[in-house]
């Protein structure tokens, strides 16, 4: 590949989800969980190094220094000291991955990684998930050396996963959630046990949902999806904001709306972050939202 081709790609941008959080929060467990429940999606996992990512042997089809090929078309790459080179390699990989999941190092500031992704052609930031260990995050946040790093990670997140929720008493979990919510005011807080977060919540995965019939559908572990019919012309940004106001437990949303000029727009929501962009040709209006149910919050 010539260098001039390096950062060009004519295809649709590859979505990238950043998974941040300090050591021991469960980032690796989440990634393993996503790989085992990839639902036909070809995930490309980018990790700083392989050593910390034990993948079940039966999933591994081939492995070399830089790449582990997994069943179902998923791969895992270590980027070592060159994230951009690794990302570029994924663009040209056959078959092309559907989604990149980037596991940040324990002290990385997610917005800095997001900044790097934003300048590369051919990628789209899907969202930033920050994993915390619900049991000890508040202690960690008082650590002399780490308090500001923890706060920056939480501030940068679209979704905070309060992992190990089963190890924390109900009231304490609520208190941790309130505490985290004050710092990460733009994020949605989701409790999880053993990092079991549904794929559709962790990553944008709406294709099947958008083509399904309307109504309510229960996802696993306390999430519900809802289809919204919509044919009126709206201001997409205002519309998305109203969705967030009306659905306090909304975690993700995606759909297509006619804007006030009658042009079709894609509206995506991750946490409280709204992204409006021109829609691809041939799509029908309508939205799907994913919300946390009350049982999920317990």
């Amino acid at each position, binding site marked *: 590949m010539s260098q001039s081709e390096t950062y060009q790609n004519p295809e649709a941008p590859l979505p990238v989800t950043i998974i941040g959080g300090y050591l021991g929060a469960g980032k690796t467990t989440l990634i393993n969980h996503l790989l085992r429940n990839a639902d036909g999606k070809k995930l490309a996992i980018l990790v700083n190094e392989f050593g910390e990512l034990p993948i079940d042997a039966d999933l591994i089809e081939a492995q070399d220094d830089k790449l582990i090929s997994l069943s179902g078309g998923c791969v895992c790459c270590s980027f070592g000291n060159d994230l951009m080179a690794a990302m570029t390699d994924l663009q040209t990989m056959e078959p092309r991955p559907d989604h990149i999941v980037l596991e940040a190092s324990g002290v990385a500031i997610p917005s800095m990684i997001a*900044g*790097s992704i934003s300048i590369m052609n051919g990628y789209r930031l899907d969202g930033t998930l920050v994993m915390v260990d619900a049991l000890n995050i508040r202690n960690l946040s008082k650590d002399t050396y780490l308090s500001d790093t923890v706060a920056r990670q939480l501030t940068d997140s679209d979704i905070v996963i309060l992992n190990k929720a089963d190890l924390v008493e109900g009231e304490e979990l609520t208190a941790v959630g309130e505490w985290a919510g004050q710092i990460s005011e733009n994020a949605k807080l989701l409790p999880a046990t053993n990092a079991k977060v549904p794929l559709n919540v962790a990553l944008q995965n709406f294709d099947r949902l958008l083509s399904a019939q309307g109504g309510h559908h229960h996802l696993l572990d306390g999430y519900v999806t809802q289809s919204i019919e919509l044919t009126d012309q709206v201001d997409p940004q205002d519309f998305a904001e109203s969705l967030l106001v009306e659905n306090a437990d909304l975690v993700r949303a995606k759909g297509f709306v006619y804007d006030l000029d009658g042009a079709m727009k894609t509206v995506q929501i991750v946490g409280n972050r709204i992204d409006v962009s021109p829609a691809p040709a041939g799509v029908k209006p309508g939205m799907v939202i994913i919300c946390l149910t009350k049982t999920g919050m317990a």
Partner: protein
Amino acid sequence: MIKIYSARKILTMKSSQPTANYVAVRDGLILGAGDLDSLTGWGEYELDDQFSDKVIMPGFVEGHAHTMEGTLWRHTYCGYFDRMDPDGKIWPGIKTKEGVLERLKQAEQEITDPDAPLPGWQLDPIYFDNERITRKDLDQISTSRPIGVLHASGHIMNVNSKALELGGLLKTGLNHPGIPLDAEGLPDGELRGPDVMTPVAVHVGFGRDFLDCDERGLRDFAKLCVRAGVTTVTDLAARLQDEAVEMLLRITGEKNFPACVVPLRFFHGLTPKELVEHAEELLSRSTERLRLGRIKIVSDGSIQGFTARLRAPGYYNGAPNGLWYVAPDQLREIYALALDKGLQVHTHTNGDEATQLAIETLEGCLRVTPSPDHRFTLQHCQLADEAQFRKMSKLGMCVNLFANHTFYWGDEHYNLTVGPERAAGMNACATALGNNIPTAIHSDAPITPLAPLFTAWCAVNRITASGRVQGENEKISVDDALRIITLGAAYTLHMDDEIGSIETGKRADFAILEEDPTEVDPAALKDIPVWGTVQGGRVFPASGI
């Protein structure tokens, strides 16, 4: 065959015999130093008078450098200060932005391949009022050839439109703190930080792995060593993949390769366990001129880049605290594993919070794994205060201070980063020595030039680029400075038993000087001409390499 060299004076660094006039060498080892009578008993010898009017010191030991400087010299030098290239040519420093553009223009005209990039290096706009070089300035030189100029810090680059285009960044709508935009909404050509530099740097002649040295670069770097009197040099952030190790073994093993190279395995892209295993495996591949098996960790960023970790009250200009480049738990894991294996770790700590973390972490690990002679070394350690030095002393730590910083960025630290009081106490050589801490001082070449006599001058005089003395009470004596650029640095590498002084049984590594550094005005220490070196008994005149 025994050779006895006569000298005007030999500064041995051996306490029981500080000076001599003769040194006897056999098979690359020193038989002894003293007067002629004390040496002739070793047997038949040849008296060599070529250094009879020179001053011989132990070969200098540079404890913190990067061999990549050898590679950088293939690019156009754009620095503010005069600097000698591997062939001995002195490139005059450029004092204005126009001058930089003029030099790049001349270099451009010498390139015959129309598509070849034009890379420059060592730009430092702080010396001309921070006037930046823009994409449009560089477009005046060429719009068809990619141009990029790397700053002295190594963390910022200025590029032309063609380079931005090739890197996919010549577009509007970018929103990144490292990419300032111009009035047209396009990048103005300055790229701040490795993340934004990398996609463009590959197009302007800085390879992806430009921190790594190649074969020619290593040979060129060794020439710089000879010109600076250096016989042992570290490469402080090497990844040491198999191919690189084989190259290093091959080049350093060449008959006339004039230095001993000590590359440290850099913690990046592998787990603590893998790191320690790799270092241990590398240790067994060491040769006389390639010493492997040491570990390097970078714990924070730089002070002038505001990425160093500072304790309260933080940065003088109110900038937010910097970044951790290693998680505290990983640092602890590496220290614990390395102590267990008897491997040495050097930790980059610029800010005092990073220093504190390293100290506390090591203290905890030493309680579990007592290691009387670990010599874990803090590299840079620029903002350590007296309490930290006292603690380091108790823990048996070593320090390698960035003495050159006082000259190059001292004014910046005084005015902007840490303010007058802390600036005066930065790189506190006197405090370190006063606490009996084994101390070295360094250049961090290519960040500043490889020249231990200049580094010694910095520690002795503490003069900033603007001519102020910064930190009168942290000045050290010439004798102390000479000791720490030889035996001091050797100690931080666990090599003081074989290099760093001129005495029986040590390797015949000498710096050959035209003048006596203990006799010249301390203000002239940096100006002493270096004739060349002797390394492992092999003679390398600077004029002949």
